[in-house]
């Protein structure tokens, strides 16, 4: 009843091929965007913006990046953290070399370096499949992390070995560095995330996205039908790494302000992979849901005991949150192995037939 597409007739091919062909979806999307662009900036405090929304959007973008490779093209990767690091270090070097250039442009450009490196490490995917590919991408993770530690040129020979984000202005507003207000950083991150998500939504339902899915579902059949595996797989690696690279650059420039090589460790790769698996392989919305679950839930849970008036030591809360989130991950994967995206689909189906389920 709430989600019924009956009666919504399409009178042109254009209308039929729209990104959101159903009215309810369009309304929902407008509401979500209104919340993100208007309600949150008006209502949220600094902590909510800097510690919840900005990292959430960055992680969601990284999860989209990995989802393209793993969910849509079927190539398992454990190198996400390192590809994000490449983006971060590239953006840092670019802005040190061109201090006057627009920082948003530099962040978007940094993804190109990440894409190139991702494509190089994607080469073995032509011969190696499945879990074996995960091992070669793991090698990329360790090799690149080693580079971040051992090549001082990458961090401008700082004694600390960390990259520290300088102050940069965009259109007269401080966009990065300590003086950048959370609201400016939030809008930049939100803008880039929405833009890339929208682009990807269109790429994925077009020729390129479909060829990725053909490779995922059966590569021999895809090859017989004229899809070139080399080009398709490398393109998936490049696009995925580009998005991860941009997310990694945003992570240091608009969220953390400084990053050590350990920020881009294997831990981050796993974190993103869990977001993708929990959210749902092969779903853009799932990437957002997965990122929300892995990032927002633990932060939110930490505030629960205090609000209920319980006086619990900080480390106990930490342990309890850790255990709760772990148990929930196992629980949700048992109940719905296809992730939150599938849950959302089930919910939509229920809404469609309500109040007369059959």
């Amino acid at each position, binding site marked *: 009843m709430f989600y019924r597409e009956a009666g919504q007739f399409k009178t042109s091919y254009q209308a039929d091929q729209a990104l959101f062909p159903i009215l309810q979806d369009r309304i929902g999307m407008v509401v979500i965007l209104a919340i993100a662009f208007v309600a949150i900036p008006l*209502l*949220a*405090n*600094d*902590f*909510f913006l*800097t*510690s*919840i929304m900005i*990292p959430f959007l960055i992680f969601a973008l990284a999860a989209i990046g990995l989802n393209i490779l793993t969910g849509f093209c079927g190539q398992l990767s454990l190198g996400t953290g390192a590809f994000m690091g490449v983006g971060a270090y590239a953006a840092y070097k670019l802005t*040190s070399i061109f*201090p006057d250039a627009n920082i948003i442009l530099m962040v978007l450009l940094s993804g190109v370096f990440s894409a190139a490196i991702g494509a190089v490490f994607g080469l073995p995917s032509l011969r190696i499949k499945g879990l074996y590919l995960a091992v070669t991408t793991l090698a990329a993770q360790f090799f690149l992390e080693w580079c971040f*530690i051992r090549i001082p040129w990458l961090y*401008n020979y*700082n*004694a*600390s*070995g*960390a990259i*520290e984000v*300088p*102050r940069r202005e965009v259109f007269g507003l401080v966009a990065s*560095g*300590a*003086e950048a207000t959370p609201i400016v950083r939030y809008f930049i991150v939100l803008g880039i995330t929405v833009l890339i998500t929208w682009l990807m939504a269109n790429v994925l339902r077009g020729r390129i996205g479909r060829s990725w899915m053909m490779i995922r579902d059966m590569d021999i059949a895809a090859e017989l039908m004229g899809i070139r595996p080399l080009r398709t797989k490398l393109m998936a690696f490049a696009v995925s790494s580009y998005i991860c690279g941009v997310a990694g650059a945003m992570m240091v420039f608009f969220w*953390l*302000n*400084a*990053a*050590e090589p*350990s*920020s881009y*460790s*294997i831990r981050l790769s796993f974190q993103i992979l869990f977001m993708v698996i929990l959210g749902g392989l092969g779903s853009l919305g799932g990437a957002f849901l997965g990122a929300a679950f892995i990032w*927002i*839930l633990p*932060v*939110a*849970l*930490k*505030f*629960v005991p*205090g*609000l*209920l008036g319980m006086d619990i*030591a*900080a*480390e106990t*809360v*930490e*342990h309890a949150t850790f255990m709760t989130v772990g148990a*929930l991950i196992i*629980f949700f994967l048992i*109940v719905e192995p296809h992730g939150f995206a599938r849950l959302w689909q089930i919910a939509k189906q229920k809404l469609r037939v309500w109040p007369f389920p059959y």
Partner: protein
Amino acid sequence: MRNFKQLALGTAVAAGVGLTGILSTAAQAQDTNYVPLLTYRTGPYAGSGIPIANGMHDYLAMLNERDGGVGGVKIAIEECETGYNAQKGVECYEATKGKGALVYNPYSTGITLQLIPKAGVDKIPVLSMGYGLSAAAVGETFPWIFNVPDTYWDGASVIIKYIGEQEGGLENLKGKKIGYIFLDAGYGREPIPLLEKLAEKYGFELMQYPVPGAEMQNQSSQWLNVRRDRPDYMVMWGWGAMSPTAIKEAVKIRYPMDKFIGVWWSAGDDDAAAGGEGAKGYKALNFSGVGGDFPALNDIRKHVIETGNSSTDAASVGSTLYNRGVLNSVIIAEAIRTAQEKTGKKVITGEDMRIGLEALNLDEARLEELGLKGFAHPMKVTCEDHGGSNPVFVQEWDGKQWRQASDWIEPMTDEVRPLLEAAAKDYAEKNAPWPKRTEPCPD
């Protein structure tokens, strides 16, 4: 399926409750001085983090119980768990800064580096006591950062000076090999520029053995190299699980323990005890009192531990890292007191706290008044020097406990200071435009 719905609903409600909590974090009541403590009692660095957290908490709690706070105003203490993780540290910072935080003690060089640019913007000083960015000692460039009583470069110079004393003079270091085993993070890399400079000056060879943080509990390959290279002395910059592992490995390869010297953070009782009998003779720097026999520590036992207001195990009072935490809180409390005197306010802000830290003068008489005679070397902060380059001493593990093994040794200030100033200038240039100091010097 019904259970599932309930659980899903429960999760959503809990998350919702948490989120509303985040949106409504109000400022602290205006009759206390709010001091957030960024601590870590979980994770691979908890072994070092717990005694420090206990020491910091207990001294402030004792002041609240015994004197009703500082200057008649209670101190509101809140711990935030960072797990030695820079991301969580920043999250803790963002979560607590709006409540009127006076000062931050990150206890992680990584978190300190992230907070340094924020401190001047948010007007909340950072007290990185004996860690963090060495160059922050230059008050002209870093008005908001304090690293009393010493920087890592001071510590490294004291170790080299001490080794020189053992060898009968610094000139005898020529041709010697000194190994440097360190946690491969901002923390362990910090002293390398100074060590390299001293190696050049005194003609010893510096051999570096980095230990990656993820593999700090497996150092056999590094110690295999040590056995091959046979350095005359070993210097360690270890933290968390790294220090006990290194000491165990050193015992295993029969490295002469009296030639193995750790920085003040590798001076925990548990670190040395891990090596068993073989660790006898292991040395480490220290700047906070050895043992639990101080009137102020007795007050902590009486007012905090025996009343059950603390999670501290009574036996750990007086251990090196616990005392370090206490000294950290002594500096906080004294800075609050100084700030109250300078500004005439009882409830102070971060800006007042900065004045208090900059005018801090913890002399012999004041230490005695606090019941901490001989607990630390008298220290004084000036506008130019936020580090102080105070003397430190060497302590030695006798198999059961630490005992002081040297007098207070002055760092090589004439070597360190020019390097500090150059590094501060370099930092400001790399982070251009770095704000000029506008804060006046307290008189």
